[in-house]
């Protein structure tokens, strides 16, 4: 009995430190600076009050122009282990100035997932981005919402409304729960609230920013359904010609339900686009999952596989750094807005002061983040 008690005490001591680390991760706040272009900040729960007070509720940043025009919605961190989406969204929030139309930005779309870790996958808890004023620290999240916020999982997830069978994990994956339902699972409520936002605000364009493995065929691309395909093709050709990077177009499969690029188009008038940039960190045959690897995307195994033509993107000793990934996303996003504005001038969205690919690669994404300690408190939103 004495041995058991001693072992129990040892176990408690062993558990204390990791428990504190995991608790701090879940409650770590990222200060987001509302840039000069941000006119108001609301919460997603405005469109579905049931979300209020839950970990799934999240900030919406509004960048409204002097002149009325079209509306676009940018989603970052649909998958919180693909941080380029959130970083691109933050660059827009902290720097963008809208002249015409409205830009709505949700940097942490799956807010619950951004506060979860990924058991079994050995991720770092945080990553730091170098800025002019020091390091800006971010939580590393998970693909799915935290089970602390949505649990238990069903034995199999049935997508609403098609009843397509999906993996039980997808019940917590917001990019499988579109278009959602008001009294459904928490993640279904999140996507329903976003659909309500899109429908009520008459949003024209929805840009959902992701990252994908280099060994995944649907990477380094724009995924678009039939209604967005023409515009996506124009964008792809333009960035290739003017900014010299590839970003091909992938059709949204009509039979694969629950994805933003499928359901938003089917259940609203908006044109959806899902952007993918290669994130080597998510590949399986890689070295240790470190913060450095997350940011520089350099890996010896992927380099060897690239030489054997087993990757779907070009890959060399330079890896696929975060600046390149964020830069691509920003350029493609700006190009989508520009091409759409050209085609429908009455619903145009004109934005300035957001850097493009070459600038982000040159200066680094951190260059575009403001020092929260030098900003008025009412312009800081903790997320």
């Amino acid at each position, binding site marked *: 009995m004495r041995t058991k008690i001693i072992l129990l005490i040892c176990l408690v001591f062993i558990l204390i430190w990791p428990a504190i680390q995991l608790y701090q991760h879940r409650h770590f706040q990222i200060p987001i600076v509302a840039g000069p272009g941000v006119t108001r900040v609301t919460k997603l729960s405005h469109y579905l009050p049931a979300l209020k007070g839950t970990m799934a509720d999240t900030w919406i940043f509004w960048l409204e122009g002097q002149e009325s025009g079209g509306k676009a919605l940018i989603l970052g961190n649909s998958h919180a282990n693909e941080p380029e989406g959130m970083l691109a969204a933050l660059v827009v929030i902290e720097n963008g100035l809208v002249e015409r139309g409205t830009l709505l930005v949700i940097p942490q779309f799956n807010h619950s997932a951004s506060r979860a870790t990924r058991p079994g996958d050995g991720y770092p808890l945080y990553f730091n981005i170098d800025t002019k004023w020091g390091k800006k620290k971010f939580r590393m999240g998970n693909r799915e919402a935290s089970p602390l916020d949505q649990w*238990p999982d069903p*034995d199999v997830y*049935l997508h609403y409304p098609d009843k*397509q069978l999906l993996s039980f994990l997808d019940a917590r994956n917001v990019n499988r729960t579109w278009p959602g339902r008001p009294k459904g699972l928490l993640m279904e409520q999140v996507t329903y609230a976003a659909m309500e936002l899109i429908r009520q605000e008459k949003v024209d364009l929805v840009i959902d920013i992701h990252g994908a493995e280099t060994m995944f065929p649907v990477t380094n691309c724009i995924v678009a359904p039939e209604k967005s395909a023409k515009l996506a093709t124009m964008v792809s050709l333009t960035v290739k010609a003017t900014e010299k990077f590839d970003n091909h177009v992938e059709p949204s499969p009509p039979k694969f339900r629950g994805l933003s690029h499928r359901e938003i188009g089917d259940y609203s008038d908006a044109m959806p686009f899902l952007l993918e940039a290669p994130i080597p960190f998510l590949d399986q*045959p890689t*070295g240790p999952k470190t913060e450095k690897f997350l940011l520089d995307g350099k890996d010896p195994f992927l380099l060897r596989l690239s030489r054997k033509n087993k990757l779907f993107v070009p890959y060399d000793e330079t890896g696929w750094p975060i600046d390149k990934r964020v830069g691509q996303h920003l350029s493609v996003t700006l190009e989508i807005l520009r091409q759409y504005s050209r085609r429908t001038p009455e619903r145009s969205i004109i934005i300035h002061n957001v850097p493009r690919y070459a600038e982000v690669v040159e200066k680094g994404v951190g260059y575009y983040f403001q020092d929260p300690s030098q900003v008025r408190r009412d312009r800081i939103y903790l997320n």
Partner: protein
Amino acid sequence: MIAKIAVVLISMVVAYLVGQWRRFSVELSLFLAAFLGAGCGAIFSTPPWQEILRHLVEGSFTYLDVILVFSTATIFMAVLRESGGIDYVVQATMNSLGKIRPLALFILMVIVLIPGALTGAGSVSLLVVGAPVAAALHHLGLSRPRIAAILFILAGLSAAAPPVNIWAMILCAGTAIPYVGFELPLGLPVIFLGTLTIFSLGWRPEKIAEAKENWEKMDIPKGMSWWRIALPFMVLFGLILAYRLWPFNLPVLGLPLQFFLGSITAWLTSPKKLNFFLISRETMVRILPLVSTMVVIGMLQQVMTATGVRGLISYAVISIPLVLLFISLAVIIPISEGVLTYGAAAILGIPLIWYLDSLGYHATVAISGLSLLWPLGDGLPPTALIGRLSVMVSNYEGSYWSFLRKTWFPWIIITLAGILMVIFSAKLSFLVRWSTG
């Protein structure tokens, strides 16, 4: 970097072997491997020292849901067994079907396939119907190791059977392939291979006299009846099916709660008075080694990823030349399942499917083929999850390997079927078209 990862891998293997040499249990040896692997990795800051405990604790939660399902399902079966229900079912089944052997065997196969097919977990098949089916097979004159072999193969096939196949779902989720069109590519091989298994291993009776004697000695409690047995199962399967039929009108209960509600029903309908808490406690003590294996496997998986060992293994597999790869699938897939359980589908399966897809192989059929191979690994150490459960529910007390040896014939046929499905996936794509109409 590759040399550093190799050093970590060697340290983990050595730690495991030392554990086994010192006669530690499998789970303690695995823990030693995870702990020393993390420590060795920390020399190279992968992971940093201050993160070692966090990785071990976080990793231990990887299979929390699976552990809850095991625990509640085993309690469910334990309550049924204590109530005398299992003995009653066996006696009744053998009275009505015992004389028509092929029909009895076929029906017993279907009984094992259903729970796993509905939940995607072969363990659920074993925990729910394993014991009564084992008893029925025993009364059909089969020896304990042969019964365990039949149950192991059928439980594995039940997990692969549609509509729910967790390996396929993990692969679909990771490769952005819709989980549709799997009914025939999975259903047909499962029925064919299941029938072959039960007939090849169960056709010839071995110990009729002893079996009959045991059967007649069964002590069925007074008042036991079909409805007392059926009601707990009706509650369990009713709850599972109800979610399938009305998913948008019912709350998600989850398998652990569904099994718990089934257990409570079994306790209420028992003709004799049972101490529910005592049964639960004894059951948990019995499955503690299995639970601790799952906890430690999660830690091991996390440490392997944080140190790069997982990536090294994954890289080694997809670097194999194609012809050699197809041949080595017979070994790689089951062993990966034995070490990582469902984690194997993500670590090896996802890059493998992307690679095959890029070469023109049909992803859905290839996934189905691989799904037949993974369950075989559930009989291999260190986890041997389904193998150990098969041995447990069939009350076999001999050597584990002598039971596993009995599976050689269906094992080889299933392996061939799985690999051929992958190789000829493009030609078999009509099965997907027929499934989707």
